């Protein structure tokens, strides 16, 4: 601890000296912050959204700013394995992670004990964006609004597929049940793809999943998204109304951000923040994020940190309601 403090103090001193040299903006310029390749830890196995975002970031950090970066997948125990690992690494900006709901928003409520503190053990550096799930029904179901869904659910038993117990789609399903005062039958799957397959095959009445990623199904008339759980409509699917618009206050978004261990020196943190935002602003990156259904907002570091903190409280009652607790 003492060592850590002295080192941090030393770094602060040297950086203060460096910062006085270039006059003008105290803000960091985008650019490489480490001679070593930066490790970007991903909480899931390769192939998912977090992984794609990490690889996109790694590629463009190198191409645009010469910052080498490698993606390190450390899946397991709902992302807590990866978060625990990152919390213990050197706070020099060489180990970062793609933070998301699983270890930072859900796990603090879901697990009785966590090996890390979601706020104090980390430096939350840059907000990348959020995507939102929605409620999908069959085109021939005669349901096109949330109000009609409520009527149908009250008239008979409706089943819904989710991406798994404790997944964002399950939590949305439980939130809908609670807010709309209906009782639907939850059928968990491992990921959304098999759930959608069973929906297509007529096994499921409805399913919850990320809206933007299913825009093709919507366009092809195979499914109707009657509401999205976002604060505003998503530009990629402008015809899908929000729950809010229809009078139901349900906002559940899947966010991703860039986070590192606590104690990253201020000027390194600023540099990482600026560089990440610069990468996210590249047209190619923006297009891919849009395809992934992620809406980016350039939050400042304090704003992002506050956001992570509030998310834990926002989700707490939802997770408890979903019954994913006590492990």
């Amino acid at each position, binding site marked *: 601890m003492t060592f850590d403090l002295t080192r941090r103090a030393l770094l602060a001193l040297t950086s203060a000296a460096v910062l006085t040299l270039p006059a003008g903006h105290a803000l960091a310029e985008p650019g490489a912050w480490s001679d070593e390749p930066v490790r970007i830890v991903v909480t899931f196995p390769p192939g998912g959204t977090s992984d794609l975002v990490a*690889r996109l970031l790694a590629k463009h950090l190198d191409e645009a700013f010469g910052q080498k970066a490698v993606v390190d997948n450390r899946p397991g125990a709902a992302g807590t394995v990866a978060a625990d690992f990152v919390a213990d690494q050197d706070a020099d900006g060489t180990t970062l992670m793609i933070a998301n709901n699983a270890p930072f928003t859900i796990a603090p409520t879901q697990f009785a004990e966590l090996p890390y503190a979601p706020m104090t053990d980390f430096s939350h550096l840059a907000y990348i964006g959020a995507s939102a799930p929605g409620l999908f029904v069959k085109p021939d179901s005669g349901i096109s609004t949330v109000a009609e869904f409520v009527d149908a659910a009250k008239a008979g038993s409706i089943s819904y597929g989710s991406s798994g117990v404790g997944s964002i789609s399950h939590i949305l399903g439980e939130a809908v049940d609670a807010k709309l005062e209906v009782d639907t039958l939850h059928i*968990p799957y491992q990921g959304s793809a098999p759930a959608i397959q069973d929906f297509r*095959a007529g096994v499921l009445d409805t399913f919850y999943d990320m809206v933007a990623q299913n825009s093709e199904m919507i366009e092809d008339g195979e499914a109707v998204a009657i509401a999205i759980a976002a604060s505003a409509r998503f530009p990629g699917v402008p015809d899908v109304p929000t729950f809010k618009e229809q009078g139901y206050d349900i906002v559940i978004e899947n966010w991703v951000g860039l986070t590192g261990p606590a104690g990253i020196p201020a000027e390194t943190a600023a540099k990482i923040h600026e560089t990440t935002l610069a990468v996210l602003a590249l047209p190619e990156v923006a*297009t891919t994020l849009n395809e*992934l259904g992620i809406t980016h907002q350039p939050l400042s570091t304090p704003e992002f940190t506050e956001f992570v903190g509030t998310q834990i409280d926002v989700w707490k009652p939802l997770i408890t309601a979903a019954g994913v607790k006590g*492990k």
Partner: protein
Amino acid sequence: MDVLANFSAGLATVLQPETLMYCFIGVFLGTFIGVLPGVGSMAAIAMILPLSFYLEPTVAIVMIAGVYYGAEYGGSIASILMNIPGTPSSSITCIDGYPMARQGRAGVALFVTSIASFGGGMIGMIVMAVLSPSLARLALQFGPAEYFAVIFLGLIAASAVSNGGALRGIAMVVAGLMLSTVGIDLTTGDLRFTLGVPELRDGVHLVIVAMGLFGVGELITSIRANREGRGRQEIDYAKFYPSAREWRASWGPIWRGGLIGSFFGALPGTGQTVASAVGYAVEKKVSKNKDQFGKGAVEGVAVPESANNSATQTAFIPTLTLGVPGSASMAMVIGALMIHGITPGPRILTEHTELFWGLVASFLVGNVLLLILNIPLIGLWVRLLQIPYRLMYPAIIVLICIGVYSLNNNVFDIWMTLLFGVAGYLMRLYRFEPAPLLIGFVLGPMMEEQLRRALLLSRGDPMVFLERPISGGLLAISALILIYGLWVTLRPRRNITTDDTSIIQNNKPSSNTGASS
């Protein structure tokens, strides 16, 4: 006609120098990584995935597919030479491939593997080219009840592959099923049988079970049996080529395996493992050479290799046309496509015609490349067997430890592997086949998931399995096989005992007949 025109257009794409080169890199790398114990197609694809982001989508998918089936093929090499299956499906290949190697017929086994994989791959490719849309529709006919029935059939078939009779096979399958319940309950999220050990939260990893039961278990058995050291095997290159009899014997199994494999491959998730188990069980029933199965029958190598390779090709059908990945490897294929802005789904056939047909054609090119690559390498692989045990065993142990450690970067997993190694040794001692256990372990979670889902959807009514025609039919077939198997095992008691002793003699590693021949 349409198919032919599309296929030749695809072939033209693949034969471009760049695509051809990456296809070669794919199968080459896949084979070599697949040979390493504990490192399968998933690790191989994860390694190559970042590179694929810099390539054209078609080139990328051709390369990744090459890695995928190359690794499946490489896994068979390790199964035959060292009794270490690279994938659960190649654990079936161990049953006859390893005895062949011990009899000095490793070269023949590898040769047959190459030919059978090629044959199976071609059958799978033709099925994919001609039947993709209809197979995708078939997969949509399969709800939870049907999946449960298919998996149940696969498990019954797996218990039938065992040499000690149906009861031993069933016991092993059930042990595998029980083992697979460790970890998070997928339907409720509760922890089961984790004994308070956080490392068991996600269950026991497949690689740990496979490497322990087969790899480490085999090493312990061999050390005990070969204390005097192994006589060097003479390498006779003429012996690499199957005899006329062996050729004839392989022909039928390759066809049957290929067709069985193409069907099961199209069902996401269950694909290769069910395909090789069912293929082997069918072959064991129809073959004129029944009594040789488990003792080094060439059919017993040809059938699972053909089946799992054709299933490997048709596994791309649900992945691409439905967007449903059957395995972690296939999930990475989807990830690779998504980063190029291609969302797998029903539209891929019309919107990305070039990519789809390029991939289909690459199966032909890739499998030919595998053949060209591997036939000359058989001599090299067989020569591995000449390495003295005192050098080879430590090397295998190190490779297993690295492979297992790399799963989660966790030392706990290495201890687990050792534990399963001891279990594997005891199973060998008491003549239990590890392959059905592994298959039960792999299919167990899927079967449980589908069973519970079907019951949830039917609101608890078990009749759903019998009322639906496909699942009812599959369950009826399973019941017939099961009753027949038990009847054969339990009735002629005297025959069973003599049969058992002959198996012990043939399977006992200490008999060492292979080394001297």
